[in-house]
């Protein structure tokens, strides 16, 4: 019997290490009762900590929300007694479970090994199919054949822009040079997205294999993985994986005895969103401020240290090994005409079942959010879904039948993006969301382009003014005009897409902007300056809870008598409303 604990960042954040300790203790008390193993994220982040019990006859039981106490219960009943603890089971391969819906619409291509293998064991990775593609490519194919295979698979870059990967490799292969580089973009800058990290933490060998194949295809003997410093666990597992791959002769000189040499290095980012942009990323590896530069010359001609370079996203590279191993046709059979294959999304926000969702492209947003995600946690209707983070946009609920492919999403004004998918319900204010992204962009603009630097600041000032109830007639039009100008006059993708969250919310939720500006109301009750908490005297029983909880001392009243809020002191934190058990506090 095997006890497998999901120790991705999500699992650890939910207390996974304590669960592991508990199982270690239990196993010390009962030596030989089972084998303890670790894996990456199993995908069901909403049920962390996840623990799988694998029995020798192949029965698999996954438990959710495991704590140290539950670990003991599970151990005693299931591991020792052979009787699963039904109420904590979230999935099994022998009985139906409501959480099956989370997996039913999914197709796990990239995530195939995530949450199954121990990411720190190359043997488990190989046994599950890793490096098959690399071996096939290096031993039986020419670089041109590799590129051709990737072209035929239809794989498009998963970093956001969706450029055909095979095409990109072709450009990087073309120039003659004494040195070329292939770089993995693991900067994952979208705040609220975690797909790349889960892949790095759960199956680092897939990324290494992709780089190896890509390096062979374009003729690069050196590779870099640029990982954001906020991902310590991913960095640790990558380091282990690289070392193991070197020991096996999959990296280093004379890879797999083929004469091809490939050396891989890790570079840690230092906290700058713009470094996800190719030329800024290159500047950062070179030790400079991460400022984008004009293209052309494209990195394929003049990249890192002035040499031809190719940059791909983590997920793009993680797809490559399997495409080569299983053949382009298998991959191309998934997805739509122009958007082939699968895409991983980080499903979060107000969704009921948040986590990693990998679906064939062409699946509708509705199927992902309602089918896999189960709708909202609150049960309230969905208002919008945000895709593409600060470069993307908000898609309103009535467009949820939009198929997830590059072109259809772009037509809504949003983008595929790198995979962030944030669900919002009625309680989320769209003006506030626009302001949120612009605050982010404004502080992350590198400052090189005037429109991006100052224009986003002006837009933010206007949005802030609107959320404070000081909006003026003409503000919406001014935002639109500024947005168009920033898009046109910025050098890199950061500025070119920065206005998208604002423009899409204006496009679909103009009335909400107008309510803020004209009626000085926030329909979602989010913007503090525009809301008022009040106690309904007929419902208040005078329990004094709110008065005691109010951090501002704004509530007064005697026991058993209706209380009142002093509006001049109220900081609108909402604590009173959430602590009132009688529903006596309203907000408007």
């Amino acid at each position: 019997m095997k006890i497998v604990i999901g120790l991705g960042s999500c699992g650890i954040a939910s207390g996974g290490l304590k669960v592991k300790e508990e199982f270690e203790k239990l196993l010390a008390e009962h030596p030989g009762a089972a084998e303890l193993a670790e894996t990456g994220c199993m995908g069901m982040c909403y049920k962390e900590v996840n623990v799988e019990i694998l029995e020798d006859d192949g029965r698999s039981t996954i438990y959710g929300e495991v704590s140290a106490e539950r670990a003991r219960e599970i151990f005693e009943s299931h591991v020792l007694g052979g009787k699963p603890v039904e109420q904590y089971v979230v999935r099994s391969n022998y009985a139906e479970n409501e959480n099956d819906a989370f997996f039913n619409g999914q197709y796990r291509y990239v995530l195939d090994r995530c949450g199954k293998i121990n990411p720190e064991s190359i043997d488990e990775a190989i046994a599950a199919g890793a490096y098959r593609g690399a071996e096939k490519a290096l031993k039986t194919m020419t670089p041109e054949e590799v590129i051709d295979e990737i072209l035929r698979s239809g794989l498009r870059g998963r970093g956001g822009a969706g450029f055909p990967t095979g095409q990109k490799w072709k450009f990087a292969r073309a120039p003659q040079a004494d040195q070329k580089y292939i770089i993995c973009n693991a900067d994952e800058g979208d705040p609220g997205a975690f797909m790349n990290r889960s892949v790095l933490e759960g199956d680092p060998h897939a990324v290494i294999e992709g780089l190896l194949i890509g390096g062979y295809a374009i003729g690069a003997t050196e590779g870099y993985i640029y990982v954001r410093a906020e991902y310590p666990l991913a960095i640790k597992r990558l380091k282990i994986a690289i070392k193991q791959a070197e020991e096996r002769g999959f990296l280093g000189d004379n890879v797999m005895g083929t004469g091809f040499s490939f050396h891989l290095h890790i570079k840690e980012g230092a906290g700058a969103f713009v470094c996800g942009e190719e030329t800024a990323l290159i500047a950062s590896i070179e030790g400079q401020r991460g400022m984008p530069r004009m293209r052309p010359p494209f990195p394929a001609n003049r990249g890192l240290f002035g040499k031809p370079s190719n940059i791909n996203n983590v997920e793009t590279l993680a797809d490559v090994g399997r495409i080569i191993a299983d053949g382009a046709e298998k991959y191309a059979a998934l997805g739509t005409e122009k958007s082939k294959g699968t895409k991983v999304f980080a499903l979060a926000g107000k969704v009921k079942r948040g986590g990693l969702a990998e679906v064939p492209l062409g699946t509708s947003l509705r199927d992902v959010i309602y089918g896999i995600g189960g709708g909202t946690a609150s049960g309230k209707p969905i208002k919008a879904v945000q895709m593409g983070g600060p470069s993307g946009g908000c898609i309103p609920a009535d467009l949820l039948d939009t198929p997830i492919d590059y072109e259809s999403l772009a037509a809504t004004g949003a983008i595929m993006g790198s995979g962030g998918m944030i669900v919002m319900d009625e309680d989320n204010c769209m003006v506030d969301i626009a302001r949120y992204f612009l605050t982010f962009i404004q502080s992350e603009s590198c400052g090189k382009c005037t429109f991006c630097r100052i224009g986003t600041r002006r837009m933010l000032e206007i949005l802030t003014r609107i959320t404070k109830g000081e909006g003026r007639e003409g503000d919406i039009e001014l935002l639109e005009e500024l947005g168009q100008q920033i898009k046109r006059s910025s050098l890199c993708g950061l500025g070119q897409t920065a206005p998208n969250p604002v423009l899409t919310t204006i496009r679909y939720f103009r009335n909400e902007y107008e309510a803020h500006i004209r009626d000085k109301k926030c329909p979602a009750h989010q913007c503090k300056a525009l809301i008022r908490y009040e106690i309904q005297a007929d419902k208040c029983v005078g329990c004094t809870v709110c008065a005691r909880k109010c951090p501002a001392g704004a509530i007064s009243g005697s026991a058993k008598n209706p209380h009142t809020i002093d509006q001049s002191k109220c900081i609108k934190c909402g604590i009173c409303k959430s602590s009132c058990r009688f529903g006596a506090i309203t907000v408007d």
Partner: protein
Amino acid sequence: MCGCCGKSEAYLKPFEDIMSEFEGKESDLIPILQRIQASYGYLPEDIIRELSARTGIFVTKIMGVATFYSQFRLRPMGEHTIRVCFGTACHVNGSESIADALSDELKIPLGGTTQDGKFTLESVACLGCCSLAPVMMIDDETYGRLTPDKARNIIRELYAKEGASK
């Protein structure tokens, strides 16, 4: 004592160890700064000057890099670092009110350090446990599904615990 800057050898030791691992090329600059910060907790000015003297990279250039990336700090931090997640998932679940509550409880703005040097309050983008939103981290411990009330209580408990242990 160091001949050029008058600092004790013990103070410079971690710096020396770091420098012995790098060639001092320009492309080493960010990793070197990261290591300095890991050892000293921030980037002390005297160390930056020493780094410049050693590598020939101008102080202005080093400062340019150090101020560009949000990871680097030029001032020491509090004993504990509180990082409130400002990622999108946390934002839509109310992280702003968590930060407000913490600011009010500790009487410091975001980015500030308490007078007693105990806590530094920071924001971060996505801690990666979006399903637990809103989330904060205090040092290495993650706290999820927060409410402003819960957040305040966590700080009070920490103060109570630390006060008692002293």
